[in-house]
């Protein structure tokens, strides 16, 4: 539940849901995020610019020309988060993934670190139903959890300068997806042809915080181009 609200500079506040990084905590964050996003989009509350959920916090940026932090804090305090209804807009996605060796860049490393053979790893991964905790770092890039305990991994020692677009990685209890080529240190176990982000669309990101994701495995030999 919401533990405290603090100002971040003079033009933002952060709603802090405690120290835990887990699904229960994050689902409260997502509830408040959706409520605030709706207020902003329906223009029911003035001056709200951005609302960014993370594992256990919600950052809200506002226009200091229109409103000051005390008014926003007052508004947030008046919300009973437990009474915000579950969102029905939350989407369930099936994302294709190819675990072929040429895309599983860290196949050997992951097998060695976990001491489990790769086919077992991909089985567990593709059977997991992931919750999108947050999106960020680069546009459309999701942080999804929770990974089965058997697949918890530390990041690779030397991050790659360029992780290919579409790569799917594991680190600690999370799974990510490189929506664009970017530097990164996650353990890469496969690749998806899905376009996560297209700025020209009104809703540019396929995934939103709070959505659920399941991976569906395919072999490169089954399709022409990846």
């Amino acid at each position, binding site marked *: 539940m919401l533990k405290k609200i603090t100002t971040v*500079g*003079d033009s933002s506040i952060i709603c802090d849901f405690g120290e835990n990084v887990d699904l229960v905590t994050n689902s409260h964050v997502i509830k408040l995020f959706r409520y605030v996003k709706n207020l902003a*989009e329906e223009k029911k509350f003035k001056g709200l610019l*951005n609302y*960014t959920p993370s594992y*256990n916090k919600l950052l809200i940026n506002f226009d200091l020309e229109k409103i000051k932090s005390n008014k926003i804090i007052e508004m947030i305090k008046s919300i009973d988060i437990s009474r915000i209804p579950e969102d029905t807009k939350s989407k369930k996605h099936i994302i294709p993934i190819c675990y072929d060796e040429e895309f599983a860049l860290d196949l050997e490393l992951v097998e060695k670190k976990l001491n489990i053979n790769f086919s077992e790893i991909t089985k567990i991964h593709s059977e997991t139903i992931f919750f999108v905790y*947050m*999106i960020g770092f680069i546009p459309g890039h999701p942080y999804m959890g929770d990974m089965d305990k058997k697949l918890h991994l530390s990041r690779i020692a030397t991050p790659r300068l360029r992780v290919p677009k579409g790569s799917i990685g594991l680190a600690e209890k999370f799974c990510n997806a490189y929506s664009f080529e970017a530097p990164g240190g996650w353990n890469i176990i496969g690749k998806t042809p899905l376009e996560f982000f297209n700025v020209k669309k009104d809703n*540019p990101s396929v995934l939103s915080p709070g959505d659920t994701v399941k991976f569906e495995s395919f072999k490169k030999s089954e399709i022409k181009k990846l």
Partner: protein
Amino acid sequence: MNSTFLIERPGINSTFQDKGRFGLQHLGVVTSGCMDSFLSDLANKLVGNDLNQPLIEFAYQGPCVKLLKGKVHASITGNIKFKIKKKNKEAIEGITNSSFYLDEGDILDIIATTKSIYGYLAVEGCFDLEKINNSFSTLVKAKIGPNEGEKLIINKKINLNSTINNDNKKLILSFDGKNEIRVLPGKQLNYFSDKSLKDFYSKKYKISNNTDRMGARLEGAKLAHIDSFNIPSEGIAKGSIQVPGDGQPIVLLNDHPTIGGYPKIAHIIAADYDNFIQKQPSSEITFKEVSLKEAEIAFDQYLTYKRKQQYLIK
């Protein structure tokens, strides 16, 4: 009227910007927008535009453009050295913080910003640009914005619908450019030793060369963390000062990452943001802590000054 500029030299970092792209940070898209909102608003005001119109932001060296077709009422704001080369080869020294007319065949050469980084070029009317997700701002690192999300490119054309309804205007501005930047304390102060906090507020920090629209890296007394320098990633706000493992602070600017996991030692107040982002590499600054109340009063004063300058343009 339809007018066209040819980009003869794009400049170092010239992009189309407006007030920014809002409501998408939860999808990983930062606001971006004009770095200096005071100067960008003035540029639009000088040509009689609505303040939401896109303009060209440039840094250090600006673009050189030739008006191939039409007539344009343009303005330039900032500490800027520029020239207008007329068709008959006559070269006119430009006067910054003013508006002026360009005739067909004229070349506008924005040579450099002096003692600052950013400047603005506005035109009366509107650049012919595609709005991307409700904004004309360009985020080059993610290729988001008009012009396919790119900086200005040599030999490309810029089309505009220019109007000449307003008289040209001039403003006398003085930039005091104080080297003391006011900040509010960060939320993760418990990550820093007492000595680090004391150093942060008492020693000078130098703006490094490694500074762009994403962030300004500072060099100075190392700010040691007590234990860890990682926090669970959280949303980032413009003007936050984060300290990664090497102990050298980074001020996060308009194109900052949307989330990040380094502790923040302080946040630059909104009233001092424009002043800070104009500091050139090698400038030395100090930080002063103020209260939230003081920050809000300072912002009201900033707004009053800004509106007064806009009023003077009438």
